[in-house]
């Protein structure tokens, strides 16, 4: 699926992704305000298939996984950044949101049309006809993402364990 790139800078934090004042509400309400402090039109204009690209330390701050969940809820297909804050990275994997590290995002411009291939580790800039190579995700984390996140992943494991006990 092809989408547009929304390009952000360094240190995009979890309060920008999931503002504290909306945390009482469900993900629907939180997602409506995703990134509004720095890009007020983001939640209204982002469409399924779009890709978030950012600089260093994306997802800094709180452990609230609504930060990753809001992006998934808006049907962003993945986040590519120079680096991620540790907890955000874990949360994204656990929610099944593809999350990839790019050695450089110099070729990427806001509004570029692109496709993201998490398995192959490539961000294809279709307007420009160039590829951005991404760091491959560790295999065990890819397995969680491919299963749709930690909960379906654990379900599979628990079902397998039960099957093992039954036999």
């Amino acid at each position, binding site marked *: 699926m092809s989408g547009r790139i929304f390009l952000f800078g360094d*240190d995009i934090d979890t309060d920008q992704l999931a503002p504290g*004042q909306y945390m*009482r509400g469900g993900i629907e309400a939180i997602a409506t305000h995703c990134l509004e402090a720095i890009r007020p039109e983001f939640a209204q204009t982002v469409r399924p298939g779009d890709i978030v690209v950012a600089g260093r330390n994306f997802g800094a*701050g709180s452990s609230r996984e609504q930060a990753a969940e809001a992006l998934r809820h808006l049907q962003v297909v993945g986040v590519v950044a120079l680096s991620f804050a540790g907890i955000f990275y874990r949360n994204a994997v656990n929610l099944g949101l593809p999350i990839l590290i790019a050695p450089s995002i110099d070729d990427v411009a806001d509004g570029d049309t692109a496709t993201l291939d998490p398995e192959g580790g490539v961000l294809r800039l279709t307007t420009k006809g160039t590829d951005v190579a991404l760091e491959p995700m560790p295999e065990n984390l890819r397995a969680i993402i491919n299963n749709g996140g*930690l909960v379906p992943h*654990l379900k599979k494991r*628990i079902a397998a364990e039960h099957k093992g006990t039954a036999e």
Partner: protein
Amino acid sequence: MKQTLAQKIIARAAGRDHVTAGEVVTAKVDLAMIHDSGGPRRVAPILKELGVGLWDKDKVFLVSDHFVPGDTEEGASILALTRTWARDTGVRFHDGQGICHVVLPESGQLQPGMFAVGGDSHSPTGGAMGAFMFGIGATEMAGVLATGEIWVKVPETIRIAWTGQLGDGLMAKDIMLALCGRLGMDGGKYQAIEYTGEAIKALSMQERMTLSNMAAELGGQTGLVAPDEVTAAFLRSVGGAVPDLSDLHTDEGAEVLEDHTFDATALAPQVAAPHSPANAMPADEAGKTAVSVAYIGACTGAKYEDLQAAARILKGRKLAAGVELLVAPSSKRDQDRATQEGIMAVFEAAGAKVLPNACGICAGYGTHRLDADVTCISSTARNFKGRMGEASSQVWLGSPLTVAAAAVAGHIVDPREMLS
């Protein structure tokens, strides 16, 4: 094989003799801390979906702190759900006793050498006790509660030494703001930070908790202080058992990723300008920025010793005209002690307003969220845009001493000017 403190703890939890930085291992969790926001309301539906119960209710530590005092309909209903779940599961529950990162060490349940997780980003606070403790999200927590296990990529260690001694008027918060300024919010690279050096060894347990807490702002996975006689004395004071500490240190010659050394003696009181803890500078270089709200609160900024420090400034002084001082003591235990020692009376006499023992406006909750364009100085850990109120509010960070001094002066000032 020479190992870091972090590696020793992870190896033990993973059932291994030793582990190597960079490898992914599955470790058994000794303690899982959760709170009312990321806890029962989010993990219970996942456990239900998985069709399993808690792996070990005695290893789960639940605290209500985010929606306390439950003064909105939604907050009250989340607290009610939390209390019901606590009753049904039989987990250890501290209800309305204060913020989890302070209540947990005060309970004596967190032991040096433990491998522990918390459902909150400031969970590295447990590192002050010499525990490898880190923050995780609710889904991952549900996985821990179901299985008692978690994957961890064995971190490298970034060793940060502070030599010399902090001068009067300096606190652990100044150390952390200076570090955020020098190393940046991703300076910790999601590795294990270990604080060492004579200035660190001289710090009390509550001051060490401020260091470890703000390992989160440095981007570290955890922030360790090797346990010593200060740790042991603290554990005894809260009725906790003292385990064998003899091997809980980084071996001489163990490989670390980075070694940093700073001089505590030369440090001046720090503030961080909006909207990042990394915007640190000496307080006397902040251009006497005027403030209208001063906030002494949160896990990192309103423990007993933080209150005691602020009271040193406020005793016999009044707030500047037009300044509101809000004080939300980190825990009930700390507030009770401060009351007994006359510290809360000092706040009252100065004209401060005392708020519940909860996360409060630091987490964007409560009725005192900052209005548009308000400038605030806060003893909390992070000043992200819009975190404590309207996006146009401006939050500066400083130590409790610096916050109190600004409340008296009406603008940011080096608090040492007010200490005799």
